[in-house]
């Protein structure tokens, strides 16, 4: 642990078992093993997997770290270990100062107690005196904006109200390290903004923040650094924006297992390949020229028209396309048709490219590529910028050229 770190995680591992019966039995075994002074070895038993696998990072005072990853990547498990609810199975966690956590939005509250009593319980756990508790209560009620409901049992609260009370309580206990697990997803936009600005102030006062969120705006606004978890391992660590970018790229690459099937011959001509080549740099990028080429094999001469279309990676939505309806007299044998898109409108991400050759007279398709079989893949690269991430977050697909006045 370096001198200025408030939280140091080194080689942290945590085992889990999804089969309930086995998990219960392992619970008995692990409890019994506590009576032995030697640490249990980090070997996986039948049915177990590593929910956290050799995770290491540090957080300093005044610093905020985003933890991102797909569902089941181990984010919540990590926070629970840091909060002391779960015990590591390997490695260690060192914390300097007091830790508060918001795990699954106020489910730590006792539903039968009123909001006021739950705040009292939180304060008592934190070792606050009666006077401090009263002061805390005023601050919490004021921040959470629930003065009307503070004397009603928490079970009668809406999820937004619970989240507000939970955040207000954890934040006003003024911990040195605050762990926030996806709690700001609930609550209206105004309250989310309030929380974000409150967290900024908390960081400026030297607090440390770990934020698990799927909201890229919150992450980008609050965190300078980030780690990407994938099946319990840190697969990327860098700035928050780079981390988000890596996450989105992984997600797009996830369904890469499509197999190519030979195009069925439906007419006198077959498209054998579709290519997309960048002309300006060595990567396909938004705003840069792209050459699209289709290769065909014709059994006999045909009069044709041709075109292509670009689809989302899942091939549900056609993003854009173009057709050249002029007559092309194609000779028998192998040949190519090409065109250039001068400024590619696609934003960063993965797309599918389909092509078609039609009969000139009837406009009926003679050859299709990527309709009944696997389409060509088109990866559009983008730099990790605030704008690029915002586009991904919005599922934006194309940009338009604009002359701003």
């Amino acid at each position, binding site marked *: 642990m370096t001198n200025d770190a408030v939280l140091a995680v080194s080689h942290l591992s945590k085992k*889990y078992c999804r089969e309930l019966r086995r*998990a*219960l039995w*392992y*619970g*008995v075994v*692990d*409890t019994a*093993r*506590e*009576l*032995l*002074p*030697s*640490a*249990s070895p*980090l070997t996986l038993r039948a049915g177990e997997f590593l929910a956290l696998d050799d995770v290491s990072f540090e957080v300093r005072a005044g610093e905020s770290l985003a933890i991102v990853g797909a569902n089941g990547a181990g984010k919540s498990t990590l926070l*629970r*270990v840091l*909060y*002391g*609810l*779960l*015990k*590591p*199975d*390997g*490695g*260690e*966690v*060192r*914390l*300097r*100062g007091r*830790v508060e956590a918001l*795990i*699954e939005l106020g*489910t*730590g*509250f*006792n*539903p*039968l*107690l*009123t909001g006021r*009593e739950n705040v*009292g*319980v939180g304060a*008592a*756990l934190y*070792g606050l005196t009666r006077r401090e508790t009263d002061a805390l209560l005023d601050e919490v009620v004021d921040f959470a904006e629930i003065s009307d409901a503070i004397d009603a*049992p928490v079970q009668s609260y809406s999820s937004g109200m619970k989240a507000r009370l939970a955040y207000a309580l954890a934040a006003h206990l003024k911990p*040195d390290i605050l762990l926030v697990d996806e709690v700001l997803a609930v609550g209206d936009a105004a309250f989310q903004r309030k929380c974000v600005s409150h967290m900024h102030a908390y960081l400026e006062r030297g607090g440390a923040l770990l934020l698990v969120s799927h909201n890229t705006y919150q992450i980008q606004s609050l965190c300078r650094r980030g780690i990407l978890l994938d099946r319990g391992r840190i697969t990327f660590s860098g700035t928050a924006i780079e981390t988000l970018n890596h996450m989105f790229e992984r997600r797009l690459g996830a369904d890469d297992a499509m197999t190519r099937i030979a195009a069925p011959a439906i007419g006198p001509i077959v498209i054998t390949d579709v290519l997309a080549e960048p002309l300006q740099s060595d990567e396909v990028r938004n705003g840069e020229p792209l050459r699209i080429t289709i290769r065909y094999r014709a059994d006999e001469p045909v009069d044709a028209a041709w075109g292509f279309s670009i689809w989302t990676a899942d091939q549900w939505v056609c993003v854009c396309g173009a057709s050249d309806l002029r007559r092309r007299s194609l000779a028998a044998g192998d040949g190519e048709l090409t065109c250039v898109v001068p400024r590619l409108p696609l934003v960063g991400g993965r797309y599918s490219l389909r092509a078609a050759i039609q009969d000139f007279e009837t406009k009926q398709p003679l050859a299709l590529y990527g309709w009944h079989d696997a389409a060509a893949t088109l990866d559009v690269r983008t730099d990790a910028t605030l704008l690029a991430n915002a586009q991904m977050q919005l599922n934006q697909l194309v940009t338009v050229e604009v002359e701003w006045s």
Partner: protein
Amino acid sequence: MSEIVYTSESELRYPRRFLAEAFADLRHAPGVAWRLFRSHAQARHRRTALGYLWLLLPTLATTLIWVYVQSRRIIAIETTAIPYPIYVLTGMICWQVFVDALNAPLQQLTAARQTITRSRVPHEALILAGVFDVLLNCAVRLLVLAAALIAFQVPVAATALLLPVGLGALAMLGFALGLLAVPLGMLYDDVSRALLMIATFWFFLTPVIYPTPAAGIVRLNPVTPLLDTTRSWLLGGTTANGFAAVTFFAIATLIVAWLFHRLARPHLVARLG
């Protein structure tokens, strides 16, 4: 600034730290437990028409059944020195304290499952709230006993002032055994079912509805000396041997069960959450 370290090692490797943390949680527990207990006591009877009467009804019903059984000679019960209804009622109240305390730890923690898997509320506080509950129930029943004593004109011995000690010892024994069952009971529902069944058998092996025999399994039952002594403090008669020994056993078991539960806690939370 204090540094907290979490590793995979057993907490027993650092006994001083383990005990310091245990006692720190214990210090917080009464304040939190009191808040929980107070609100639960208020909330508990909101959905019942008879309200607090439910604290009395089971005890009264069982007492009436046994008074009927005894008066009709359905089964042979030796005559007691004091009026039989008073004998059974005191026995029932003592027994109920023991059995409520036996069930309290597991019931409390099972009910607070959501809370303990997501917040760091000390389990001690939740369990202690259950103990407060047991004591409240007992206090209400004692009021009925007082009324019955007046109605039957049974004289009360001066040693009745020791009644809280006797009831406290019964609660402690039940509570210690109940806490011992928690780690396994949180994982397997079999334990809570078994506890129910065991309590029924145990009732018949305890001199609640009949006078203590001179020998036999009833004499080996640890509840017997506590119950007999407590009853004799209230109503007079000879006190039983073994009260101090059983009380000491209960305290020792309670401490061991508490520390063992602390070791088991993260493993339970991992399997419950």
